[in-house]
C-alpha cells in the first residue's frame, strides 16, 4: 500500500470487510451443525459430583464395582468439579429447578448458603429419620453431624472427622539437635524451634520459617480459634465473635506473621508455589488435618520419610491438642430421579469397612464411623511419616475434636474475622507493636466490629425470621 509522508493509515479498507463476515458466518453454521450432532451428554443412571481429587480417585474403582452389581438405572457416574463450580451449580440448580447431580459431596464452606433461605427451599433430602431408623446416627462420631444440621434436621451423611495434628520436618529438626517432646504449648513451639529460622539463599532475608500460617488464611484462623475453645456462634445461632478467647488467638497469629518475632511463612496448600517452598525446606511445621497427609503424599513424594506428626501445641498447659479443619458430607438431591438408590449408594460409600480402609490408605482420612476405628490398618507404620502409625494418632485425637456451628452465616463470620486479623496486622505494623498481650485489646475492638457486621446480615434475613416463628 503506498504511503506518502503525509498519508495516514486508512482504518477501513472496504475490500477486506467481506472476509470477516464470511469467516464468522461459516463458523456459525459449522459450529451449530457440529453441536447439533453431539450426542446427548447425560449418562443414564445416577450422577455424583465431588470436589476433591483424592475422593474422586478413591471412589472411581468403588463405583465401577457398584455399577457391576446394580441395574443400569442405578449406575453411578462420578464428576470432579471445582469448589466454586460445585457450589454455584448446586445452588443454582436447587434454586431454579434446573439440573443438579443426584448425589453431591459438599465441603463445609459451601453448605451455609443452602441454609440461608426458607427450610422448604433446601434442595437436599432431609436424612434425619433415615439416619435414626438405620442406626447410622449412633455409629458416627457425634461432632461430625453438627455442620450439616439446620433447624434441627440433618441434610447430609458425614464423610469424616478431620482432626488436626502438627506436621514437622523431622530431618531439619534432628539436624539442629532439637527434641520435639519439649513442645507442649504454642509458647514452647516458638521458643524451642526458633533457632531453625534461617536465610537459605544468602540474600540477607530469612526464608525458612517455623509455621505455615498467614494473616490471609481464614481456614487456619478458624482452626486455631476452635482449638482454643473459641466459637463464632452459640447453639441458638447468635454470633459470639467478639470474645476474649478469639481476640487472644488472632493477636497471637498477628504476632507470628509480622514484626521482629515473626515465625510464619505463607506456603498455601494445593498450590505449586506452596509445595515448592515445602520441598525447599522453607517450612518447618504445618497444621495438618488428616486429609492433608493424603494430599502431600500425592503432590510431594519428595518429602517422604522427612516428616513426622505430633499433637498440636496447646494454647494453655493441659489444653486441647487438636482441632478440626474442613469436612464433607454426602447429600441426596430432593429432585433426584431415584433417591432410594442414591441413599443405598451413599451408605455403601461412606460406611463400607473396605472403603474406609482405602480412604485411609489412599487419602489419609479416618472414617467418622467409630465402630471401624479398631481396624488394624490404622496401626500400620507409615513410611512417609518415618514409620509413625499415623492413623492411630488421628483416631486418638478424634474424640477431642471441637464442635462446629451450622450457622448459614459461618462463612460470613470467617471472612469478617479474617478482615479483623488483616486489620490487626496493619495496626501492629503502623504502631510498631507486636506483643500479643498488647494487641489483644485492639483485636477485641476489631472483632466487635466484625460481630456487628454479621449481626446486621442476620437481622436482614426475612426467611430465617419467618422460620423462627
Amino acid at each position, binding site marked *: 500500500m503506498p504511503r506518502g509522508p503525509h498519508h495516514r493509515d486508512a482504518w477501513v479498507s472496504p475490500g477486506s470487510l467481506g472476509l470477516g463476515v464470511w469467516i464468522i458466518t461459516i463458523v456459525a453454521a459449522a459450529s451449530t451443525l457440529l453441536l447439533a450432532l453431539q450426542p446427548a451428554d447425560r449418562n443414564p443412571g445416577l450422577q455424583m459430583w465431588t470436589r476433591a481429587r483424592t475422593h474422586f480417585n478413591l471412589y472411581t474403582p468403588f463405583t465401577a464395582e457398584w455399577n457391576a452389581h446394580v441395574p443400569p438405572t442405578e449406575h453411578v457416574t462420578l464428576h470432579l468439579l*471445582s469448589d466454586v463450580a460445585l457450589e454455584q451449580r448446586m445452588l443454582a440448580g436447587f434454586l431454579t429447578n434446573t439440573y443438579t447431580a443426584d448425589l453431591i459431596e459438599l465441603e463445609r464452606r459451601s453448605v451455609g448458603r443452602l441454609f440461608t433461605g426458607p427450610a422448604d427451599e433446601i434442595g437436599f433430602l432431609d436424612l434425619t429419620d433415615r439416619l435414626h431408623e438405620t442406626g447410622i446416627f449412633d455409629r458416627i462420631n457425634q461432632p461430625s453431624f453438627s455442620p450439616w444440621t439446620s433447624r434441627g434436621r440433618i441434610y447430609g451423611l458425614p464423610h469424616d472427622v478431620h482432626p488436626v495434628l502438627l506436621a514437622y520436618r523431622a530431618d531439619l529438626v534432628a539436624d539442629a539437635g532439637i527434641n520435639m517432646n519439649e513442645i507442649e504449648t504454642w509458647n514452647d513451639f516458638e521458643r524451642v524451634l526458633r533457632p531453625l529460622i534461617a536465610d537459605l539463599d544468602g540474600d540477607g532475608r530469612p526464608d525458612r520459617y517455623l509455621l505455615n500460617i498467614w494473616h490471609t488464611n481464614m481456614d487456619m484462623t478458624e482452626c486455631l480459634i476452635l482449638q482454643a475453645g473459641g466459637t463464632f456462634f452459640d447453639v441458638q445461632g447468635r454470633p459470639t465473635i467478639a470474645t476474649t478467647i478469639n481476640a487472644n488467638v488472632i493477636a497471637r497469629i498477628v504476632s507470628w506473621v509480622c514484626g521482629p518475632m515473626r515465625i510464619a511463612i505463607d506456603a498455601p496448600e494445593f498450590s505449586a508455589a506452596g509445595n515448592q517452598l515445602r520441598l525447599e525446606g522453607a517450612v518447618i511445621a504445618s497444621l495438618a488435618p488428616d486429609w492433608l497427609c493424603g494430599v502431600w503424599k500425592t503432590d510431594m513424594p519428595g518429602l517422604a520419610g522427612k516428616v513426622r506428626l505430633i499433637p498440636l501445641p496447646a494454647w494453655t498447659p493441659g489444653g486441647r491438642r487438636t482441632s478440626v479443619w474442613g469436612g464433607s458430607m454426602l447429600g441426596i438431591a430432593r429432585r433426584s430421579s431415584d433417591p432410594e438408590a442414591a441413599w443405598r449408594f451413599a451408605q455403601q460409600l461412606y460406611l463400607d469397612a473396605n472403603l474406609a480402609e482405602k480412604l485411609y490408605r489412599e487419602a489419609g482420612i479416618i472414617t467418622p464411623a467409630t465402630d471401624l476405628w479398631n481396624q488394624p490398618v490404622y496401626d500400620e507404620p507409615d513410611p512417609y511419616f518415618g514409620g509413625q502409625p499415623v492413623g492411630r494418632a488421628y483416631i486418638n485425637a478424634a474424640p477431642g475434636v471441637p464442635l462446629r456451628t451450622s450457622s448459614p452465616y459461618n462463612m460470613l463470620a470467617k471472612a469478617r474475622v479474617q478482615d479483623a486479623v488483616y486489620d490487626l496486622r496493619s495496626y501492629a505494623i503502623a504502631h510498631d507493636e507486636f506483643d500479643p498481650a498488647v494487641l489483644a485489646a485492639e483485636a477485641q475492638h476489631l472483632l466487635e466490629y466484625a460481630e456487628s457486621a454479621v449481626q446486621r446480615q442476620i437481622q436482614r434475613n426475612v426467611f430465617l425470621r419467618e422460620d423462627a416463628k
Partner: protein
Amino acid sequence: MARLRLVITYVALAACSIIILIPFAYLVCASLKTSAAFFSSPFLPPGDGWFGIAWDQLTLSHFTRLHSELHFERQLLNSLFFSATLSVLATLACAMGGYALAKFHFRGRVTLTALVLGMLVVPGTLLLAPTYRLLYQLGLLDTYAGVLLPLAAPAFGVFLFRQAASSTIPDALLEAARLDGAGEIRTFFAIVVPLLRPMIGAFMLISFLSMWNNFIWPQVVLQSGAKYPLSVAIAQLKNVYSQDYGLLMAATLVSILPVLLLFLTLQRDFIAGLTSGAVKG
C-alpha cells in the same frame, strides 16, 4: 536533532513493546515446561541444548492432555458457536432494525428510537438479576438460547446501524428500487446490505470478540459443563488444577489464540469496529 528524536522514539517504542509482549512470552513458555522444570527459570529452562535451553525439559503433553483428559475441544466448539452465532444474529437484528428506524416513517418510530437511546446508558449489570429471573420463568436457564437471546439485541448496535443507514443510504436509491418493482426484502439485501458493509463487518467482529471474552453471563446462565464456553471453563480449571500450571497455561493459550489469529487477519476491520463508537462520540 530530529534524527535523535526519532532514535529515542524507537527505543521507547521497543521498550514498551517488550513490556507488553512479556506476558505473552511467559504464557507460551509456561505452557511448554514440564512441571518439574516449571520453577527453574522465569521463561525457558536453561540447559546445554541449542541457544542454552534445556529442550528436553519442554513438552507438548499439556496440550495433548487438554484433549485426552479434559475434552477441551468441546469448550472450544462452544465458544466458537456462541461467538459466531451471536455475531450473526445480533448483526442481522440490528442492521434490519437500524435501517427501519433510519429510513421509514411509521407509527411508533419516535418511541422506539427514544427507548433505544435510553437503553444506551443502562449498564448490563443492572439487567443481570432480573434477566436471570426471567430466564428461569421462561425455562431457558442452562440452555444455549438462554445465553444468546438476551444478548442478541444490543441497543448500541441498532444505534450504530441507524447512524450508518442515515448517512450512507441515499433515499433516491431506495425510491428507484421501489419504482423498479423490487420487494422490500430484496431491496434490503441487494441495496442496503452492500452499502452497510463496512458497519456490518466491524459490528460482527466486535460482537464476536465480546461474546468470546464474556464471562459473567454464561457463568450465571449455564450449569452443565458440556455447554461451557472457554471463559467459564478456564475459570474452573484455575481452581481444580491450581498445581498444574502448565496445563492451565496451555488451556489459556488455546483460548486466546483463535481471537488473536482472527485479529491478525482482519486487523484493520477490528480496530475500525472497536473505535466506531468514538467517531460520533
